[in-house]
């Protein structure tokens, strides 16, 4: 009987060990996937990476493996991301302030608004792109920086709103009420207390959304157009980094494909910097917000 029990215990402990190893192996696999992706992209990009790629626009035969760089796409992406992020912030702030000032966190309106933000976040970017295209036609626009900005703003809006919302929900009720009892109207409370209190958190949300916006290709495919020149106005078409990568990879020339990897490395680096900045900001929030 005792031997039987010991045997049984042994089997249970082996099962436990098997699953512990399996679980740990899965976690390691996820980590390896990330490292493999970053490593491959960086390693492949080295031969083509050069300063002139960053500082020059494509010269005629760029896609045939000749002169030039991808300055047009870098600048296009930065313009597009900045514009879209600003526009998305303009939409997000009121929504989030509304959720956190006028409505308690459990009110029905708040629950539904958050629900739809989550749903909107889940809409595929290609669908956002198609919708942006519909809007563009309805407004009589051509594929341009402006149309691209509108579309990407729509993509960033739910991401930014939810991120800022998460931070603002941490601000205790009493703090919002304390200001109200001093005679401030709720509107002023909203703007002054909340925004000041959560400024680093807002920035985190903004950066997070911008990272998403700058990396997305499918949404700007229809709307931003593509050009070899740096856009001069909102009505000009604008090249973007993700699309540049896509097009460069699509050519049959090995040199150009290498440039695609270099472009991908540049884009990854930009995203990395943005997300590191967001993390740093986030750490600041956790230190400052009174809990």
């Amino acid at each position: 009987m005792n031997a039987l029990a010991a045997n049984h215990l042994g089997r249970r402990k082996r099962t436990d060990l098997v699953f512990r190893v399996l679980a740990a192996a899965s976690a390691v696999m996820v980590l390896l996937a990330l490292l493999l992706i970053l490593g491959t992209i960086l390693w492949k990009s080295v031969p083509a990476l050069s300063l002139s790629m960053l500082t020059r626009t494509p010269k005629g035969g760029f896609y045939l493996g000749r002169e030039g760089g991808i300055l047009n796409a870098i600048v296009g992406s930065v313009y597009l991301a900045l514009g879209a992020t600003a526009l998305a912030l303009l939409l997000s702030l009121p929504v989030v302030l509304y959720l956190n000032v006028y409505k308690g966190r459990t009110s029905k309106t708040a629950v539904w608004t958050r629900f739809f933000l989550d749903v909107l976040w889940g809409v595929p970017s290609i669908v956002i792109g198609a919708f942006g295209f519909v809007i563009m036609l309805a407004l009589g626009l051509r594929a341009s920086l402006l149309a691209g900005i509108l579309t990407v703003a729509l993509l960033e809006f739910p991401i930014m709103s939810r991120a800022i919302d998460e931070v603002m929900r941490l601000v205790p009720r009493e703090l919002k009420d304390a200001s109200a009892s001093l005679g401030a109207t709720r509107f002023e409370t909203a703007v002054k207390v909340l925004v000041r209190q959560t400024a680093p958190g807002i920035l985190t949300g903004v950066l997070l959304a911008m990272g998403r916006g700058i990396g997305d290709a499918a949404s700007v495919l229809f709307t931003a157009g593509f050009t070899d020149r740096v856009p001069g106005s909102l009505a000009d078409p604008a090249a973007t980094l993700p699309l540049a990568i896509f097009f460069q990879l699509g050519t049959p020339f090995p040199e150009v494909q290498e440039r695609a990897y270099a472009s991908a490395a540049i884009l990854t680096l930009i995203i990395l910097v943005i997300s590191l900045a967001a993390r740093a900001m986030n750490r600041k929030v956790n230190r400052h917000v009174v809990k």
Partner: protein
Amino acid sequence: MRLLKDALARRAMAVIAALPGLLVLFIVIGLFLRSKAILGVEPLSRFLFSSAWSPMKGEFGLLPFIAGTMWVTLTALALAVPVSILTAIYLSEYAPRWARRAAQPVIDLLAGLPSVVYGAWGVILVVPFVGNVLAPLAGVYSSGYSILAGGIILAIMTFPTIIHVTLEVFASVPRALREASLSLGATKWETTRHVVLRKGAQGILAASVLGFSRALGETMAVLMVVGNVPSVPRSLFDPGYPLPALIANNYGEMMSIPRYDAALMMAALVLMLIVLAFNVLARGILIRVERKVR
């Protein structure tokens, strides 16, 4: 004066709170208006279930694309769900604190990498791997541009979503409940299996559905490695042509062929509605789970 400003702001903000819901509605309506034209020519059933696709002849059957989407997404999910749940189990039940903390930026970065970067990586590594290693192992020929390549990349892209939501679900299982099981002499795995997984079953389901709907709509990365051949795939090593790839690939010529644009917008609408349905399902489950925990 100040009160007036307050009243105005309140009114304006109420409108703005409805914005997310309205936007979802606008997207559906906008796409529908642009795709209406196709419905006059082609009955919806033929549009959805015919596999004849030749825009030049005016034949728009979406079946190969819907099938391609399902193949790629289900492959991705079959790979991603076990790995993600095991990873979440490791992080929440077994891992030391430092590992848990180190995992956060890894998951965030995986979620933040642009899909073209995933695609580029797929072209470099995954496609040759499938074509030169996996296909010969399975005894078939494949160029590598295949459902499987798309599925592998899509699985990695879905990890963060499923892991993140599953971790939140696990965190909502009270510690004292785990202790109750442990104090009876159960091992960690027994506790995880009988208590944590069972208590979190609905949440895990929601996480998987959410991952599924994320994967359904993913465009560029899949498009770059899946081969884009408009026929219904018959094996993992066949190329496929998912809906998002169809839309993305043909934006150029869609205005020059009659009703092509309407057909593509209809494809976008179909994709939107499928994703919407799964999304609402997942969020609905999650809200219910949250309420029950409270």
